[in-house]
C-alpha cells in the first residue's frame, strides 16, 4: 500500500473516488483498430452507487477493467482514490487491486478446487495475513453474506446465488473502498438477483462503499443505482437523468 503513489487530494475535491479524463482503450484486431473505450471522462464521488449501462460491446466492461486496474489505458487518465492508475507499475497495480478495489463478476469466478473459506481467504494470502487471522476474517465475511453453514463446501455444490454471495464475501475481505460489479445478476434468476442487489445496496449504505456496477438491465439500475452512466461504442452517451451532459463527450460525465 505504501508503495502506491497517491495524487494528493485537491481541496474541495476530497470526495471524488474515481476521476477519468479522456480515457481511451484501443486495440488492434487484425487490420482493424477497435476503440473499446474512446475518450471517456467521468467522475464518481466517494460513497456513490453508480450504474454503467450499455448494450453489449458498448465498452462498459472495458471501462470497469480500466478502473479495476486489470487493464491499462491507451491514452487519457483514470485516477482512483488519488492514484493515477496509468502511472502504476504492474506490481503496484496488483497491490491496488488487492487493497483498494473488490470485484464481483457475472460468472462468480470462484476457484472450483477450493472450498468457500479458501476462496474467500485467498486475497488475504496474497496480502500475507497470518493463517489464524485469515480464518477468522473469512468466517466473519461468510457470516455477513449468510453462508456460514456452507464454509467447507466447494463452489460446485452451491446455487448461483450462494456462489455470488461467496464472491461478494471475497471482494469485501480486504475492506476495499471501491466495489466493482460486472453484471453481478447476469447469471441469476430475478429473485436471487434481487437478493444480491439488496446486499450491494446494504454495503453501499452501511459501509459507505463506493460501487460501480456494469449492467445492461435498465430496470435494475434504476431501482438500485443513485446515478446511471450510459455508454455506446466506447463513448459516453445521453444520460436521461442528466440532460446537461448529453451528447457532450468533453464534459465530465454524469454530474447528478
Amino acid at each position: 500500500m505504501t508503495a502506491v503513489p497517491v495524487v494528493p487530494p485537491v481541496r474541495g475535491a476530497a470526495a471524488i473516488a474515481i476521476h477519468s479524463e479522456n480515457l481511451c482503450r484501443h486495440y488492434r484486431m487484425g487490420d482493424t483498430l477497435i476503440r473499446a473505450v474512446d475518450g471517456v471522462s467521468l467522475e464518481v464521488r466517494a460513497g456513490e452507487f453508480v450504474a454503467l449501462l450499455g448494450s453489449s460491446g458498448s465498452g462498459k466492461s472495458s471501462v470497469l477493467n480500466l478502473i479495476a486496474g486489470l487493464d491499462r489505458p491507451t491514452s487519457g487518465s483514470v485516477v482512483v482514490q488519488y492514484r493515477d492508475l496509468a502511472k502504476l507499475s504492474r506490481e503496484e497495480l496488483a497491490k491496488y487491486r488487492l487493497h483498494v478495489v473488490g470485484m464481483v463478476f457475472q460468472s462468480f469466478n470462484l476457484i472450483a478446487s477450493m472450498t468457500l473459506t479458501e476462496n474467500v481467504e485467498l486475497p488475504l494470502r496474497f496480502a500475507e495475513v497470518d493463517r489464524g487471522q485469515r480464518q477468522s476474517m473469512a468466517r466473519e465475511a461468510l457470516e455477513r453474506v449468510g453462508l456460514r453453514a456452507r464454509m467447507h463446501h466447494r463452489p460446485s455444490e452451491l446455487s448461483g446465488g450462494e456462489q455470488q454471495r461467496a464472491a461478494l464475501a471475497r471482494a469485501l475481505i480486504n475492506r476495499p473502498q471501491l466495489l466493482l460489479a460486472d453484471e453481478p445478476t447476469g447469471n441469476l434468476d430475478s429473485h436471487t438477483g434481487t437478493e444480491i442487489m439488496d446486499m450491494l445496496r446494504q454495503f453501499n449504505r452501511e459501509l459507505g462503499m463506493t460501487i460501480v456496477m456494469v449492467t445492461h438491465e435498465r430496470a435494475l439500475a434504476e431501482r438500485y443505482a443513485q446515478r446511471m452512466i450510459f455508454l455506446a461504442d466506447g463513448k459516453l452517451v445521453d444520460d436521461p437523468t442528466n440532460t446537461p451532459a448529453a451528447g457532450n463527450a468533453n464534459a465530465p460525465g454524469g454530474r447528478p
Partner: protein
Amino acid sequence: MKIPDLAELALRNLRESLLRNSLTTLGISVGVASLVAMLSLGIGLQQLFSKRLAKSGLFDTVLVTSRRNLGGMGSERNDGGPPPGESRILDEPARQEIERLPNVLEAYPDIRFVSELRYDDKPHRTIISALPPSAKSNDAFEGMQGSFFSSDAAAEVILQKTFAEELVGKTPARGIDETNVADLAKPLLGKELTMLYSQRVASASAPSPLAPDAATSADGDIVGASYSVVSREQKLKIVGISDQDPESMRGPTRAKVFLPLKLAESLHVMQPADLRELSRAASDQPVYSSVSVRVKNPAQVQLVEDAIKKMGFGTFSILDASRGLQLVFRVLYAFLGVFGSLALIVASIGIVNTLVMAILERRREIGIMKAIGASDADVKRIFFAEAGVMGIFGGVAGVVLGWAIGQVINFGTNIYLKREGFPPEHLWAVPLWLVAFAILFAFLVSLVSGLYPAGRAARLDPVQALRYE
C-alpha cells in the same frame, strides 16, 4: 505469499490433477533413481578399491633410499657411488628429520633380513621384516588369527600363512589355497620359535649392551673392516597368523615373518645394506637401507616426496599409479553421471509439459487470482512451488527407488561372488551426501523446468484470462 502458504497451495493444486502430476513425479523419480544408481555404483566401486588400496599402505607410503634410484638400480651401481651432492647417509638423524616434515605421520626404517628360524628343531630359512605399531590397522593384520604384537619391543612374531603351513609341514597344493588359517592357528599360536641371526657389533667393543637378555653370544665371529658380526639367537613367541600377504607388492623379496620394529632395531641385525655402506657405517649409529614414510593423506604424497628429494634422498611412491586410478574414477563418474542425468533431463521436459498444460487449464484461475490482487510474482511463485514440490517428491521417491535397485544388484552380485568362491562385497554405496545431492538436484532441475511455465503464467493478461472459458 509466504512459503508455507505456497507449499500448501502447490500441494492442493497438484492433488487436483493427481494422475498427471503423479506420472510427472514418477518420471522425475525414475531420473533421480538412475542418477543415484549410477553414482552409487561408481562410489561403491571406488570405495571398494580405495579401501583395499589404502589398507595395503600403497598410497600413503613413500619409500626413501639413500640413492636416487631405488635399490641401486640403473647407472649408479656402475658408477660405484652416487654423485657427492646426493650421497647422504640414511641414518637415524636423517630419519628423525624426515619424520619432522609436515604431513608426515611416521618414518620408520625398513629392517629386512634373511634368517633361519628353528621350530621343532627343524630349520626354516625365510625373509624377516619389522613392522611399526601402525601396521596393526593394515588390512592383512586386521582379520588375522591371534593378535597383533602386545608391545613394540615384545619378543613376538607374526607369521604369514604360507610360512605357517611350512612350519606344520603342510605343502599347499598349487593354485588353490585350501588350508584354513584357523586350522593353522591351533597348533602354532603361543609356541616358540628360535631365530638365528647375525648381530653387527662395532669393532671396538664386545657384545653390544643394547642386545636383549635372551640373546646369547655364540662362536663364529666374523671380523669386518671396522665392525664385527656375531651370531646370536632370539626366542620368539608366535602371536598371530595372517591369512593375507601383507607385502604382496614386494614380489620375491617379500617377508613371511614379522617382528615388532623396536625389537628388530635393538637386535642390530646385520643387513645387506651394511655391506655396501661398509666404510661409512663404522660407528654404532644404525644406517638404514631404506625408510618407509607414511603420509597423513594420499593427496600429500607428492609434497612429502618433493621435500625428501630436497634433503638429498631418493624416493619412490605409487602416486603415479594412483593418479591414473583417480583419473579413471573421475571419467567413470562423469560417464555414469551423464547417463544418470539424461533420464532426469527427460523428466524435466515432462515437468515443463505438465506445467504448460496446467497453465492452459488454469488460465481462468490465474485471471481470477490476478483480479483479486495476486501480483505477477505471486502467480510465478505458485507455479514455481508446484514444480519444486514435484521435484522434491520425485527426488525422495527416486532416492528410495535407486537405493532399492542398488540393493537388488548388490544381492545379485553377491550371489555370483559366492558361487565363484569370493567373499561378499559391498559394490553399492549410497552415502548421505548423495541422498541430499540427488534430492537437491531434482529440486533444482524442477525449478529450472518451472522457469518458463511460471514466467508464462505470470505474464498472462488477466482481462483475456478472465474472458477464457
